[in-house]
């Protein structure tokens, strides 16, 4: 059985975590999913994300969340890192601007996408 995948090795998308072109976080809320633009700091392998202190729908400690870091506007330029995990509240990293609530995403699953690398693979290879 073969199928099409856009997945690439996470290491190949490392630059997205270093540059953070765009980042957002999704969590489940009482009235449906929440999506929040976040400030992301990838420090020593830790995913530190911040939202404005007054932002509605922010995550709670221990809550499951998905972090999306992506870039590109044209199809073959689209790349992304998608990380699912749980958030914990943390202190702001040194030098971070004030007025933000900081979280650390403890990753459970991480996937990188690159549409330029769309290809057919066998299920065993996915």
């Amino acid at each position, binding site marked *: 059985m073969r*199928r099409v995948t856009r997945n690439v090795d996470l290491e190949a998308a490392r630059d997205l975590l270093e540059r953070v072109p765009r980042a*957002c976080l999704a969590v489940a809320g009482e009235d449906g999913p929440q*999506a*929040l633009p976040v400030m992301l700091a990838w420090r020593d392998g830790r995913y530190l994300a911040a*939202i*404005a202190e007054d932002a509605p729908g922010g995550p709670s400690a221990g809550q499951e969340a*998905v972090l*999306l870091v992506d870039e590109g506007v044209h199809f073959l330029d689209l790349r992304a890192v998608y990380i699912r995990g749980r958030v914990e509240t943390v202190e702001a990293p040194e030098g971070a601007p004030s007025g933000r609530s900081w979280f650390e995403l403890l990753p459970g699953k991480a996937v990188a996408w690159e549409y330029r690398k*769309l290809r057919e693979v066998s299920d065993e290879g996915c």
Partner: protein
Amino acid sequence: MKAADPAVLEVLRRSMVARIATPSRNGRPSINPLYFVQVNGQIWLGTVEWTLAARNVQADPRVRVLFEVERDPSDARVLRIRGRARVARTGRRSVRTTFVSHASTCRRPGESATRSPMSGFCGSAAGTTPRVRRRADRA
């Protein structure tokens, strides 16, 4: 803020990629970038029906969608829309039909090399709650 607010329309006009947050059947969050088009007050997001986003919308139509002006990094506005989406099948893959659309939240990810029918998300402008915020700064 209304969907027809000039600030909303301005971000939608300049944005190219929507990020749609959806809940799974079990309530787990997900968020995916999709291309979108806005046509006649509706936003259409293009994808194929086997994607997680499409399957989630079929299970629970509640969505939140983010829009940014990707091509202008100096524009820090982020439009956030709350609404309901539905999956509209549009036949065989065709870039044009893929981007069938509606008013605040749509986009097509890859019409990949599959032969699956293309699907689009459609959400009506009515019932959406757009907000324009400043993008969180980069660390």
